[in-house]
């Protein structure tokens, strides 16, 4: 809540499942109004169905949020998908383009739609969900890792661009997280892999949401930060 008692407003992409859903739930629980942008319906206060890789669809969705709630205090870009087990030479140009357009393009489209609104109010917080894989690289999912790495470059630069306003732009880079994005037979679910993690387990979506919540509520001193709750996968 703001000091005037008006609930704060969060826009969360990918809000129908996994990390996005956990972020929406955490913000709602803290008294925020939430709008979800997802291909599927989400359990947010304002569920909007749109493909984040479509700039016009994102712009229209964001307009609906400002029409309904009058303000946007937080943008969380969690929309994405994952493909693993593909050697680099087998990644098709279609797979590459689609991954880049959803993960990098989706993040850019959402920031571009929300930023003018935040700039006009002079305040706001953007938290992009990247990946721990972008910090240290990974085999057999190179298009995903490249897209998540590009998100970090984008976010750090955007953070610098708006640094002199009260708008704060940061990233959260989750470790392997227990969401539907990880197939049941995923490499990252195998006991042999989990045993290599200092925490010995997957990260929970709620733990990613807690990091987002912290940056959204007490993160005014961060500018281009990459906070990585990753169970020790990348230290």
């Amino acid at each position, binding site marked *: 809540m703001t000091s005037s008692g008006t609930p704060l407003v969060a826009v969360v992409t990918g809000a129908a499942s996994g990390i996005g859903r956990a972020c929406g739930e*955490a913000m709602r*629980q*803290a008294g925020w109004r939430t709008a979800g942008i997802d291909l599927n319906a989400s359990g947010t206060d304002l569920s909007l169905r749109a493909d984040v890789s479509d700039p016009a669809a994102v712009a229209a969705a964001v307009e609906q949020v400002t029409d309904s709630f009058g303000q946007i205090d937080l943008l969380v870009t969690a929309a994405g998908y994952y493909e693993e087990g593909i050697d680099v030479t087998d990644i098709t140009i279609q797979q590459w383009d689609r991954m880049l357009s959803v993960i990098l393009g989706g993040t850019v489209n959402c920031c571009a739609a929300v930023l003018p609104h935040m700039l006009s109010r002079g305040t706001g917080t953007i938290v992009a969900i990247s990946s721990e894989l972008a910090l240290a690289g990974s085999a057999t999912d190179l298009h995903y890792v490249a897209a998540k790495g590009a998100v970090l470059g984008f976010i750090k630069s955007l*953070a*610098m661009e708006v*640094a*002199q306003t009260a708008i704060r732009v940061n990233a959260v880079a989750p*470790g392997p997280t227990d969401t539907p994005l990880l197939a049941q037979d995923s490499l990252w679910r195998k006991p042999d892999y989990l045993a290599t*993690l*200092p*925490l*010995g387990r997957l*990260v*929970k979506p709620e*733990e*990613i949401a*807690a*990091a987002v*919540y*912290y940056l959204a*509520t*007490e*993160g*005014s*001193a*961060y*500018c*281009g*930060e990459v*906070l*990585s*709750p*990753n*169970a*020790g996968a990348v*230290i």
Partner: protein
Amino acid sequence: MAGQADSGGRDKQRGVALVTGAAQGVGRATALRLAADGFSVAVNDIADDGRITELAEQIGGLAVPADIADPGSGPAMVEAIASTLGPVHVLVANAAAMAMSPFLEADPDQWWRQIDVNLSGHFRVIQAVIPAMRAMGHGRIVIISSGWGVIGHPNATAYAASKAGLIALTKGLGRELGPHGILTNAIAPSFIDTEQLRVDADDAGISLDEMRQRYRELIPVRQLASPDDIAAAAAFLAGPGSSGVIGQVLQPSGGVTRTRA
């Protein structure tokens, strides 16, 4: 929700925290925050000139003055806390010595003093808190490093080396203690609006406001962090919201790792 300042109340059900270097600045702000979050807080500084006793009284905690560079002091301090408040669940390793000088003019005694307090002192305090944390299967170690330990700073080589050493310590302990349920992370602040600014201003022969302005010019967000910003980061790392965070270095520094464009 995790980490809110008012979540704990006064019943101290969240366990015992020890904050070193708590007489002023970041340490004091962190002690106040952790107490507000529901911890019983033991507050350390090199000597008690009244400030940590007063702080301990204010927050219902315990003052444990000790020079952590003294090899026996860490274990003795932790033992005193255990017998009074109980075993330490959260350590905030914040105490630090700093002396600025050009590298070639660095006094070896000052070099070692900074290493002895900042790095070796906390080595001993951490060794002392680990057995109880392991027995409980839970613990949080929050190490206050410095942005200068990440990016360096002219005329602060010993300080930067000690703070970079703490980052390596954080990563090593993160890996070594993680399997025992003990999470170790670090915070690397840069320019903070604390009493140290007065020292910096006096050293530079300028006013406090001129010093603030000089530092602001170096920071992309053009704002010094407040002690409360760093305390909030420590509270996050001490609280339930960071249960998946291990071996990380948080930098609430306004983007200062990059020189200004």
